[in-house]
């Protein structure tokens, strides 16, 4: 290895890895993500039709989608959707549900406290921290700009 330095080797090694199929991945993410959003729209329309007001319908739709994501995770289906859909099934709220339910299921063997409850946020935790954090910052900016 002496005639190849670390940088050269890392570059060489990178070239040996097959390139990700970007076009196919993007297309599948668009289709799967689109289908999940379509499902959300159907649920939303159904809730509106059944008399839920505009304010409550957003929450209601999210609750049902989270439930569907959790159910499909529990049935062992969501990881298979994720393998095909990639970001298309990761980004919608069903993906968030999957990120919480999958560690909760897996760490059941370590008990309800140190297993399920502690490990539940192992993947979704950063999303919550930075999601809530950035919403606070945006909220403060909004307040200041509105007053000014």
């Amino acid at each position, binding site marked *: 290895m002496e005639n190849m330095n670390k940088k050269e080797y890392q570059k060489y090694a990178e070239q040996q890895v097959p390139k990700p199929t970007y076009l196919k991945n993007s297309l599948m993410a668009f289709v799967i993500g689109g289908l999940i959003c379509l499902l959300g729209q159907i649920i939303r329309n159904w809730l509106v039709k059944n008399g839920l007001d505009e304010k409550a319908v957003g929450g209601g739709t999210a609750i049902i989608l989270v439930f569907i994501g959790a159910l499909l995770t529990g049935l062992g289906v969501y*990881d*298979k959707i994720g393998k095909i859909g990639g970001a298309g099934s990761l980004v919608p709220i069903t993906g968030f549900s999957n990120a919480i339910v999958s*560690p909760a299921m897996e760490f059941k063997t370590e008990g309800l406290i140190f297993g399920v409850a502690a490990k539940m946020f192992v993947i979704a935790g950063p999303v919550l921290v930075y999601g809530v954090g950035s919403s606070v910052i945006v909220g403060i900016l909004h307040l200041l700009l509105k007053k000014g």
Partner: protein
Amino acid sequence: MLDGVKKLGMQSVKFQNPPSILSTYSIVGPKEGEGPLKDYFDLILEDDMWGQESFEKAESKIQEETIKSALSNGNLTNKDIDYLLAGDLLNQIITSSYTARQLNIPFYGLYGACSTMTESLSLGAMLIDGGFAQKVICATSSHFSSAERQFRFPLEYGSQRNFSSQWTVTGAGATILSAEGNGPYITYATTGKIVDMGIRDATNMGAAMAPAAMDTLINHFNDTGFSPQDYDLIVSGDLGSIGKSIVIDLMQEKGYALSDNFTDCGYEIFDSKEQDTHAGGSGCACAATVFNGYIYKEIMKGSFNRVLLVATGALHSTTINQQGESIPSIAHAVTIDINKA
């Protein structure tokens, strides 16, 4: 060379009274049992939990049953064994310790990640040739699901795997070495050095481990005077398709033609297209099950007379990886020969 000094060259030993392989056993999970080598494994599990309540307990049971079956294969009991040398991938090598708890055999726990099979064979052969033992068991195991939860994501998490990622083999392999026997024999061992070429990507372990495999191979050839052509088979542990082609490519540059008789356990154990395992198999059990299943049985059939097994290990943890460190890798080689010299 002084009488009684068995060290050969920089990193190798030549055994004066080469220990003989007395018996082997291998157990694999259902996915490995659908792979190209399925007919060579001694037991294929239908359920990778094997009636246990956790993946870790299941892995321990797999290792324990593998060792017990290797004992009964050789018509031996635990009282006949001087040492158990075993290791695995899990933190504090718990699989092996909990296995050893059940076996009542003096135990040395080893950590060489996926290189543990040849680490244990090297040390076991040294114990026997050194006169410290008559019979030794060398064993190791890994489990896809226990490794996933320690190193990666929960099983049901909907993520995509990189093309360079590998699939941890579920299973265990055990070899019983003896001071007396009719072979095949462990004739040489080359101990690897840590080689780290700065690869940080834990989903590309083949590329991280390939330089370690090359370093050990080159030192083995220099120390022993063998050339690649002296072997019927040279087989690395779990480089997978990417690591394998790197080794062939860069060894060519060094003047060693490996392509014909060289392959990799991780490359052979799965049909990567059919079984969707990307770059191939990995884990301690990869080299262990392929050696104790396929290679040993083919040696006994007469297909190979002399084999060089080079199990490779990526000795990282998620903690230090997240701190920005690269992956230190190692490879240990042992020569398995049907003749003593």
